[in-house]
């Protein structure tokens, strides 16, 4: 009962600090352990594997004219041939990786731009908030694909432009979500402590607020990745992608649709791969979102936890 007894120390849970420092790893790991997360990751990895090692294992060059158009599957061509008599299997194996790279790049651009805009708007408030969010509203007024098409028709179908167009079309949605998450965090007193330390707003956003937004950013990134895949393959279907002889899942659906009665595989396989990939990423994102809610508990759960102690309520 002495006044200055050092508070009794409670042993820290082993390994906890490491996980805490890399919170995104901890969330990913927990998400993979859920059945939903495992299923999503398995689906997405399957498609990812095909796209990545595909070019190395393809039996034929993707643009070689080898047989008659829309030939049925055979021993030599397991998925038949396309409208020019090229091997569908080889084109499928070669046609995914560029789509994936573009989708990831567009997601990175969209989340980075959106998060920066949303966080700044929420933290700076006042005029900056109004300005940024009205800009976001204007961008939101266009449907995403229309916005992307608008840019492409103005400048031309360049791959980098597709990536930027898709990224920019994501940014407003990301900005809205991150703005509301930041509003909550920037109300907390540790942000005021940093202000009293004379920290610059940019540093406060990066060092104090950002580490507390890892979970919403991860969920947004997963969601936007799914949309990027859909948008980029959609644009490819419309002809905005690599120029024709190059294989591309989105454009394959378009170029082979007239041959559906004779060789459906030329359309069905690329379509199914795009579908599996988006279902996979979306399911995995859903698992992340559920885990993240568990990490930052809902208020009523938190109340029970403070009453009973975090270890026992787990």
């Amino acid at each position, binding site marked *: *009962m*002495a*006044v*200055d*007894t*050092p*508070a*009794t*120390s*409670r042993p*820290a849970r082993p390994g*906890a*600090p490491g996980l*805490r420092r890399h*919170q995104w790893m901890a969330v990913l790991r927990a998400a993979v352990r859920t059945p939903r997360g495992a299923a999503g990751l398995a689906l997405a990895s399957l498609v990812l594997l095909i796209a990545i090692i595909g070019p190395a294992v393809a039996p034929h060059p993707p643009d070689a004219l080898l047989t008659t158009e829309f030939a049925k599957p055979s021993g030599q061509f397991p998925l038949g041939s396309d409208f020019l008599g090229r091997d569908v299997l080889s084109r499928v194996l070669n046609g995914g990786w560029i789509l994936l790279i573009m989708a990831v790049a567009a997601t990175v651009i969209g989340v980075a731009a959106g998060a920066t805009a949303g966080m700044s708007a929420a933290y700076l408030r006042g005029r900056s908030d109004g300005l940024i969010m009205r800009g976001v509203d204007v961008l939101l007024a266009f449907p995403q694909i229309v916005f992307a098409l608008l840019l492409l028709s103005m400048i031309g179908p360049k791959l980098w432009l597709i990536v930027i167009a898709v990224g920019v079309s994501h940014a407003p949605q990301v900005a809205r979500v991150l703005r509301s998450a930041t509003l909550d965090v920037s109300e*907390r*007193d*540790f942000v*005021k*402590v940093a*202000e*009293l*330390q*004379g*920290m610059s707003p940019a540093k406060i956003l990066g060092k*104090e607020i950002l*580490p*507390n937004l890892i979970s919403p950013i991860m969920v947004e990134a997963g969601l936007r990745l799914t949309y990027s895949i859909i948008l980029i393959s959609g644009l490819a279907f419309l002809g905005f992608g690599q120029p024709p002889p190059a294989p591309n899942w989105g454009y394959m659906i378009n170029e082979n649709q007239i041959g559906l009665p004779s060789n459906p595989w030329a359309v069905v396989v690329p379509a199914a791969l795009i579908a599996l990939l988006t279902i996979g990423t979306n399911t995995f994102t859903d698992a992340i979102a559920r885990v993240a809610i568990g990490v930052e508990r809902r208020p009523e759960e938190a109340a*029970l936890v*403070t*009453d*009973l*102690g*975090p*270890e*026992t*309520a787990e």
Partner: protein
Amino acid sequence: MPSADTATAPARPPARVRLEVAGLEVRIGAAGPDVVSDVSFSVRAGEVLGLVGESGSGKTTLALALLGHARPGLTISSGHVFLDGADLLALSAGDLRAARGAKISYVPQDPSSALNPTLRVGAQLREALQVHPGVVADPTSRVAEVMREASLDPSPELLRRYPHQLSGGQQQRIALAMAFACRPSLIVLDEPTTGLDVSTQRHVLDTVRSLCRSYGVAAVYVSHDLAVVSGLASAVAVMYAGRIIELGPTLRLFREPLHPYTRGLIGAVPSPDHAEQLTGIGGQQPRPGRRGAGCSFAARCGFAVDDCRTRAPEPVLVDHRTVRCLRASEISGEQAGRPALAPALMADAPAPVLSVRDVSARYGQTPVLADVRLDVPGESCVAVVGESGSGKTTLARCIAGLHSNWTGEITFQGTPLARGARQREKELLKRVQYIFQNPYTSLNPRKTVGQIVAQQLEQFQPLEFRERSARVAAVLADVSLGEDFMSRYPDQLSGGERQRVAIARALVVQPDLLICDEVTSSLDVSVQAIIVELLRRIQRERQLAMIFITHNLALVRSIAQSAVVLRAGAVAESGPVERILTRPADPYTARLIEDVPKLAGPGVSGG
């Protein structure tokens, strides 16, 4: 006078026992660790039992179990709650629902969330009666009756209002009126005055007391505030780690506490009448499932012997009380007093470190402060006291530069301060340090304690790594946190430990002025005492100037030399603490002092 009531109680014939609780136990899940265990007590008609305990002691869980309710994840695993002889826990779900509200009622902590914001209060009161058909013949006249009993004007205007159009005190009275509307046998009150100002609190407590007495209601009053309970209850049960560790008549229990924990708690309660050193209780309450084999208080107990750590104490009857302590009868004679503090002599009008002149502040268009004047002399502590909404926190934020919409002049060490922190020089920011009310939001949850304290140095005093770590370790030691705390994250700390980290962060840059904004209001009383003593020691040792903002007048005497009383944004009076507390010049101050709940026992030091 509460003491007179309890003293005359034994003269009356004992009333009938209304509530009898036997062997009540609540567990996590069906067979998990127990949250509340082996609880037995009884309450007579017209009596109030005070249930006191710190956060995590299981008092709210027990209060809800009295209504046959367990929060999701918990189960009432055994025991009986006899109300007028019938076991509530044996009732079917339907019968229990019928009993709730009619025979047992509940007053929650926060009336603003307990009342439905979309229903007029009249409709809510009538609804409370209508869900129990047959209890009352004429709801309208009963509504008017209970309104009058709760000291509310039963006018149609008031009944037509929505909850948000009422003050906090009025809302709590409506909740009380609802609870008493069906003339229940038992009423459970869960900290109903926590959010209220002392004056409103006093009126609500008076209402509870008179209603229980006139209708022979048994009441269980749950609270963390010992002083509130001591003025209201005829018997008190002290909870610790899910068990009742001491149960007895209020006066006796507060005058001569037997259990070491009860003693510790009482030693931690500040008194507005004496300047005394507060004694806190080090350590923490064990969580459910970690309460060990022996006495759950043994780890923090100054009287503990080896036996205490292995053998769980059974309740024993000592001196009219049930105590769960193996050594209760041995240690009952040893009463520890609190050392009185020599009134701090102020040096002859030392030059003020900070002076606030005619400061007025507004939030948007709403004025919050009007022409506030305040001087903080060097090496002394000034308390800023006021009820909620008096502008005390706004004043602190103006001084710190967190609120910039103010006029007037604030001079620090001779330099006029700029309005906002952004316009101030780094050196000034460093010399004025601010400690926030809530340690749960003032520490970044993604940083370790070491990083949090070191960051302060990085911002103000670039030092090489080794020198910086040494300073961080030294300051943590100064607030009694060991070096192993450096690598912990805030969510691994208790509230008191977090507040120590916040204090260490402020001290590491060796400021000249420390602003403490309600730094103990979110802490338990035993922890509050430790933090107040820590601040007092540091203020003396480092010869700091300090502004201590609080709504708790009783604390002022333990820490400050002079005080400023704020009322609705203006200074009601200011002067030395001794003078203000003993001879208040302003009637408002006098009323505030009058309304502070005091412990029933006379000064614990025996003076």
